[in-house]
């Protein structure tokens, strides 16, 4: 082709309609939201353009299960044939958007109440309907009623209709797959979810009372009472620990500042039900229309324990209006929310310390995680966070009152009976630091209080052993040396425990891995890597057999040292002590090891009996 020609894109309308109507939205109830929003915008347009003194907007919804029909009717401004052609039948062109642009010059407040913007929300009707009929009569003087009908393909029929009042009625022949939307309870729930705060009364199924609140709680006469009531209704939660009302804020952008119109509130539930499922969810409204109830990016990451409702016209919905764009305004709102939440919590800590304590106790896991990352916050909570200990929940000052100057913790549950006995024998409560943030919290605490030491009990029980003079026990050690047992004298509690055997960490794995390598049980390439890993551990053969620690404070050991029986009996008693300690060590013995231990113990008993 030698000549360049300018061509136009072609639209395959049925395909486009299918995509917009069926694939843009993730759930079918969204169709009802879109139609209610159109009705709302139409009412608002009538209020703005009609200038009627006594105009009262009204939206009614009825469901007819027998005929599988859903009807949404409004007394808004209606449509002329030209408007139907220009807006309803033109995808991507929105009258509301154009009206907003016009109004924004004259009345920002009214412009901000208009919701529609994309010009294809009406198509969502085909998510739930196989056929849509619209009967409308425009506010324009001399307009007659029109009837528009479409089954969702590229054609529609437009002709004269029957309607006396100004406004629009949409009748939807509900598809069998969407019949559930006709259930009265679900219909009310859907209207409340999406349109609770819309100012127009919405009547469902002939009820004389509107189902929607019409006024967000923060605009009620008594905002705090209305908010608490709303939280109880919408979040199924009574008595939140605190409610922080949101307000407009100016955010500094460095080179500029941005005024954010912000309404809503944040609140903190009394306690975490299951802290791992807390995400700091926000319910988001834009111009009073519900967008989503699980926005997790707006609140700061540390604020998982908080929840709330926000309405900000600067947030930009995605085309399906089921989530929001993370644009510059989004970032500014993140900043504003963090600022207002921190201020609110700080105020609470100063003015209402009792509630602040309840908050910290109710959300301990989340709060320890936050405090580890935030020094200022750490200082506020360090002394009031309760930790799980072997003696119940204790704050660190209460804990230190029991132990003096050391914090004993275990990063995993204390495994063996030997470990538990040694810890209790030490007469100290042990903090359960298996939750991820506890250990760094304790480390931070110890770092800031120089006279407080940290002792981790699991993984290295040797930390509970204290050095002792071995001179009086030389004879005992010599006998063990002759038996090929590595033994040492130390002191530990409880004094009733004569001896323990301590193995290097992972001894079972090391022995198992050596055995796997010797018998070629691992595939070649992996054997090389495992072999390399084992050599890196540098654990010697002797250590793998364990070290026997004799307790210098144990009366039996002292007696054996001070007043030993005959040499044979002493050797037998020491063998017995060693084998009992081996069996008590909590290490899984192989059948051969266990048989050997019992064999040696039996031989020792026989020696004693002789």
């Amino acid at each position, binding site marked *: 082709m030698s000549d360049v020609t300018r061509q136009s894109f072609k639209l395959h309308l049925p395909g486009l309609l299918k995509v917009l109507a069926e694939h843009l939205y993730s759930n079918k109830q969204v169709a009802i939201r879109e139609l209610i929003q159109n009705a709302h915008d139409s009412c608002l347009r009538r209020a703005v353009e009609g200038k009627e003194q006594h105009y009262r907007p009204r939206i009614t919804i009825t469901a007819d299960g027998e005929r599988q029909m859903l009807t949404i009717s409004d007394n808004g401004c209606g449509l002329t044939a030209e408007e139907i052609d220009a807006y309803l039948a033109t995808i991507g062109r929105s009258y509301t958007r154009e009206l907003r642009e016009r109004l924004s010059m004259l009345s920002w407040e009214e412009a901000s109440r208009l919701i529609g913007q994309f010009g294809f929300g009406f198509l969502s009707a085909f998510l739930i309907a196989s056929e849509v009929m619209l009967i409308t009569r425009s506010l324009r003087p001399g307009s007659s009623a029109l009837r528009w009908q479409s089954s969702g393909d590229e054609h529609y029929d437009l002709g004269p209709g029957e309607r006396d009042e100004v406004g629009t009625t949409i009748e939807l022949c509900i598809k069998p797959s969407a019949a559930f939307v006709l259930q009265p309870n679900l219909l009310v729930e859907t209207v409340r979810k999406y349109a609770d705060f819309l100012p127009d009364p919405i009547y469902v199924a002939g009820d004389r009372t509107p189902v929607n609140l019409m006024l967000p709680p923060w605009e009620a006469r008594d905002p705090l009472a209305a908010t608490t009531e709303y939280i109880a209704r919408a979040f199924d939660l009574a008595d939140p620990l605190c409610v922080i009302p949101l307000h407009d804020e100016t955010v500094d952008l460095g080179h500029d500042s941005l005024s954010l119109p912000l309404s809503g509130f944040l609140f903190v539930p009394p306690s975490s039900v299951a802290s791992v499922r807390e995400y700091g969810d926000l319910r988001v409204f834009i111009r009073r229309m519900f967008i989503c109830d699980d926005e997790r*990016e707006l609140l700061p990451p540390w604020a998982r324990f908080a929840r709330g409702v926000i309405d900000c016209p600067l947030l930009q919905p995605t085309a399906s209006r089921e989530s929001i764009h*993370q644009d510059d305004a989004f970032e500014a709102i993140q900043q504003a929310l963090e600022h207002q939440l921190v201020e609110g919590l700080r105020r609470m800590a100063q003015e209402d310390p009792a509630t602040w304590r309840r908050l910290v106790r109710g959300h301990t896991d989340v709060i320890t995680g936050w405090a580890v990352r935030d020094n200022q916050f750490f200082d506020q909570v360090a002394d009031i966070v309760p930790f799980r200990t072997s003696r119940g929940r204790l704050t660190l000052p209460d804990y230190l009152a029991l132990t003096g100057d050391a914090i004993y913790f275990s990063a995993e549950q204390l495994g063996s009976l030997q470990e538990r006995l040694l810890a209790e024998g030490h007469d100290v409560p042990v903090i359960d630091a298996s939750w*991820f943030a506890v250990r760094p919290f304790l480390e931070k605490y110890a770092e800031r209080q120089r006279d407080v030491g940290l002792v981790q009990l699991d993984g290295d029980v040797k930390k509970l052993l204290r050095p002792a003079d071995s001179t009086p026990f030389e004879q005992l050690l010599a006998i063990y040396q002759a038996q090929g047992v590595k033994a040492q004298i130390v002191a530990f509690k409880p004094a009733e425990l004569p001896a323990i055997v301590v193995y290097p960490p992972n001894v079972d794995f090391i022995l198992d*891995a050596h055995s*796997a390598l010797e018998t070629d049980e691992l595939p070649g390439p992996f054997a090389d*890597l*495992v072999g390399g*890993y084992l050599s890196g551990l540098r654990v010697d053969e002797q250590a793998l057999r364990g070290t026997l620690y004799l307790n210098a404070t144990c009366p039996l050991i002292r007696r054996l040292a001070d007043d030993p029986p005959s040499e044979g009996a002493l050797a037998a008693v020491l063998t017995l002590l060693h084998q009992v300690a081996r069996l008590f060590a909590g290490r899984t013995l192989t059948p051969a090891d266990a048989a050997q231990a019992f064999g040696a113990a039996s031989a020792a008993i026989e020696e004693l009996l002789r």
Partner: protein
Amino acid sequence: MSVYRWLWDFQRQAYDSQDSERIRLAEIAATSEQIADDDPDRALSLLAEGRELAAWLGESWWVLYIDHWRTQHLLFRKQDNNAAREVVVPAVVEARKEQYERLPQRICLHEDLIHVYLSTDPVGYTAQIDAALAYMSGQITPDLQCRLCHQAIVISFAIESGRLDDAAEAALRYLEMSQYHNHHLAHAYAYLCQIAFLRGDWSGMYAWAESGEPVAKREGQRNTRAELLAWQSLAAARLGDQQSARRLYRAATSVAARSSLVFDHWFYDALCAYQSLEGRYERALELRRRQLATLMDKGRTVDEFRCRLELCGLLALLGQPLAAELAAARAVAGRLIDPAPALAQLEGLERETQH
């Protein structure tokens, strides 16, 4: 048998028999997976709890299943090779036993072990990784999803070995294989961006990153999403669209800041390349220092060396003293199996600086 089939059967049996402990075990695993990209520390805590429960219930398959996920979180969400090695080596040794012959996670554990060494010293362990990958390809049947993970390691290994044509071919194949697996799909786009970065193909990088970012967002893959945004930002800057580049950079760092994930070197490479392109070497230096802090004592020897090398380069550019950093880089190079090429790079940098 696929791992999903096994999990499904286990859960169904647990629910059918109202076995609350086993139901809890399955829930712990599912919850930890859900939250891993938001909060890997919590996910690891939960898995530790799950492992204890599995051991107590005598569910040895579950113990290894959980070990696989612990390794994954430690490797890819905490970038902690040392801790991952402590988990996966014993698990591989345990998995050799006959009772695990049909455990689907056995292959995954082998892959995890390769990943550990791949991110420790890929050149030093080339022979072992090569042999292990060859062994793995004989183990993976076409019906197993493991072929996707295997393909991912093949790409990483090719990139690390400097075989960019092989890497690109493998990455495009991975992209094709991942069409119905969104989790892998986002990774495929990230690999293509990494290759584009090494080749200096900025328009390619922009296209891959732009396609991949919504996938990662939809899948909740924060680290991949942040990386793809960072690549997009760098590519936009390279292509002259500074305004978009700034916006995308902010988006990348904002996504990164909202999690406790530790990011791998690609993320920092993208951010630092952008800052350097804009002439903000101080900022790039600060980012590299932040990256270095995440690498200390984590057993990622090759990453630590590269990070220190970049630090030296930036210090030299800024005319700041670099003797201490050079010495530290040399010490890290000494931990590589073959330190000679790394030491030569340092010597080259030192010579350039002196001139």
